[in-house]
């Protein structure tokens, strides 16, 4: 009996104290934050550049209140749909943004860049990158140990055991995690492109042509042929390396035709009638062509499925 009374009294006193404390330290939060947070995908991937969806929701509401715009803020996972919803909650409008996708700028598969030294250390690119240039000898190319795969929260990037290179599938939401995880900076976020078609230089080797080619048959040798042929000035040459600006590129594929080492890849284009190739090219890249077509088909299949 006494126990009941004492506990009851204690409980009441504590409740009264807690009530006043709660009133005193009340945090007034904009109810819009909750609404925005509900719309966001809850992936907490950090792709927007903020730690978690809640923080992003706070930032969105703050930006709407202070600057009356959502410029520079984008949820890559939700894409345009989610951003539109967010904007309607906040009574604003957003520009449509091209969806992005991660592309692997290295095609140095085991067939293209034969293994010269075996590596049997721990399976992380970060360590191997500090230790040595790579099994194929290219100091810019993919190490193939899968730090990007481990970093992906969306099951969108996988190693192809045959080529030893990672492949990105349709689940990619461009959250930037793999870009940050790659110690060599091979992965780039590029616009998905019309009908999912993309053209990019699948190489970041800045060595001189001869050296690059020695290590890998599909390396960009910096010959500038694509640079000269491009009618839209989309290609820039820097440090023996071509780069295609995805915004200027009109997907005409002229550069793909002139590239002597096949280092420019076209993705998801319909198969073309093959022109008879010059003898030189056949000799040099006969083997690599076969492999490359295989991988291309693989990636096509994957994206279709």
């Amino acid at each position, binding site marked *: 009996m006494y126990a009941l009374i004492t506990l009851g009294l204690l409980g009441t006193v504590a409740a009264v104290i807690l009530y006043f404390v709660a009133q005193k330290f009340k945090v007034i939060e904009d109810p819009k934050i909750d609404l925005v947070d509900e719309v966001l995908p809850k992936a907490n991937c950090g792709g927007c550049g903020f730690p978690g969806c809640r923080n992003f929701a706070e930032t969105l509401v703050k930006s709407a209140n202070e600057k009356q715009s959502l410029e520079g803020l984008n949820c890559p996972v939700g894409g345009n749909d989610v951003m539109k919803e967010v904007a309607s909650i906040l009574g604003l409008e957003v520009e449509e943004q091209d969806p992005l996708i991660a592309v692997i700028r290295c095609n140095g598969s085991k067939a293209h860049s034969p293994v*010269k*030294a075996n590596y*049997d*250390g*721990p399976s*992380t690119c*970060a*360590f191997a990158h*500090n*230790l*040595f*240039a*790579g099994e194929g*000898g290219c*100091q810019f190319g993919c190490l193939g140990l899968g730090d990007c795969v481990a970093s992906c929260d969306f099951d969108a990037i996988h190693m192809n055991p045959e080529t030893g290179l990672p492949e990105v599938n349709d689940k990619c939401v461009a959250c930037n995690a793999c870009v940050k995880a790659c110690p060599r900076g091979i992965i780039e976020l590029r616009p998905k492109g019309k009908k999912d078609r993309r053209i990019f230089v699948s190489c970041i080797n800045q*060595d001189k042509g001869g*050296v690059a080619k020695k290590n890998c048959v599909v390396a960009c040798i910096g010959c500038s042929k694509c640079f000269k042929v491009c009618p839209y000035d989309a290609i820039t040459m820097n440090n023996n390396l071509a780069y295609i600006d995805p915004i200027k590129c009109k997907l005409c594929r002229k550069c793909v035709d002139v590239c002597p080492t096949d280092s420019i890849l076209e993705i998801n284009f319909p198969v073309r009638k093959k022109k008879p190739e010059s003898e030189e090219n056949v000799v040099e890249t006969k083997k690599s062509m076969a492999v490359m077509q295989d991988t291309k088909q693989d990636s096509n299949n994957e994206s279709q499925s």
Partner: protein
Amino acid sequence: MIALKTFKKGGVHPEENKLSADASIQKLSFPKQAIVPLGQNLGAPSKPLVKRGDEVKTGQLIAKGESFISANLHAPFTGKVLKIDDAIDSSGYRRPAIFIDVQEDEQWEEGIDTSETIVREIKADKQTIIDQIKNCGVVGLGGATFPTHVKLTIPEGKKADYLIINGVECEPYLTSDHRLMLEKGEEMLIGIKILMKALEVEKAIIGIENNKPDAINHLNELTKQYVGISIQPLKVKYPQGGEKQLIKAIVNREVPSGKLPIEVGCVVSNVGTAVAVYDAVQKNKPLIERVVTVTGKAVKKPSNFLVRVGTPIQLLIDAAEGLPENTGKIINGGPMMGKAITSLDVPVVKGSSGILLMKRDESQRNSPQTCIRCSKCTMVCPMGLEPYLLAKLAKLSLYERAENEKIMDCIECGSCQFTCPSYLPLLDFLRLGKNKVGQLIRSRK
């Protein structure tokens, strides 16, 4: 009998395998083409002074160390500069180097004494010694290649009272320092005297592990004529050649975390460096050659060669009667701290101490198992760290925490990985962690 001195914390005792201990130092023939990398010292790479097509004489200054921690570089051969281009280093990365087309008849730069006569009298004063060491591009030959003139420039307010000479050579297989002590003992002692004069210290102690009794006896005999230099035999234990371990073993002082040996009044130098100092000061001869051990269980003729910097490793292996057929790994350095190389075109640099050819079966790693918390790695760590924890933190990218756990104190000796019964790649992750934490610290500045 009194117990031999050694450092207290941790340590391991790998098989010694000093196969080339009895092979006297041989001069190696010259290559046709030499590749002299510009970044041969710790710190900033040297700036080239020559250009394509220039004729160079042996010993001529070809690259200058301009920043504070940097060293001069001299032509190791007479010949023509082919090009200044990138060449692969032992890791396979491409770094700038000077390519020299080597002439057969050698011409030395004027003013260099190439005779074998020993010059005993030390005429130079303190500043001249340091300047001469700087001009001749002398760096620490123990492996870290820290520019020696920087080490001799003692910061204000500090005073050195011991010069410790590292003749430990605790790495298994390697014997280059051992042979140097036996064959160039006198030169080395004069070099030590010069270092003592530059540092203004009265006492120098040469630490030698007890597995080299011939070197200990030989030097004991010689030091009778040199006041202030003594020999300290040490118990065989790895990593006794580590700077901090050696100081602890010989003078029983502990270098505080993150500080240099001068903090406890010590300067540590390698025996090879002492010989290079002798050459530089007494003979005006720049550092262009060093002793390199070529060894391995399958090597037909384990040898010690006096090699000019820039000689491709292929030539050394040929001189040791070729690459054994079942070679699995070629290691630049010793088995504990060395790194496997990816090409035989890699040149010998100032920091190369040995080439180890490992058989395929002994070079393979065992597949790692899970940590069984046996705490062996903590017990053998000579720096008193917790390697299992640091490796885990590095693996999980928790670099701030790793920094708090003093990952930067790791000397990368590899004792933890050597002793791990689960074959965990502890050292690999420690190296990764050190690299990342180093970046973190630099980014804060």
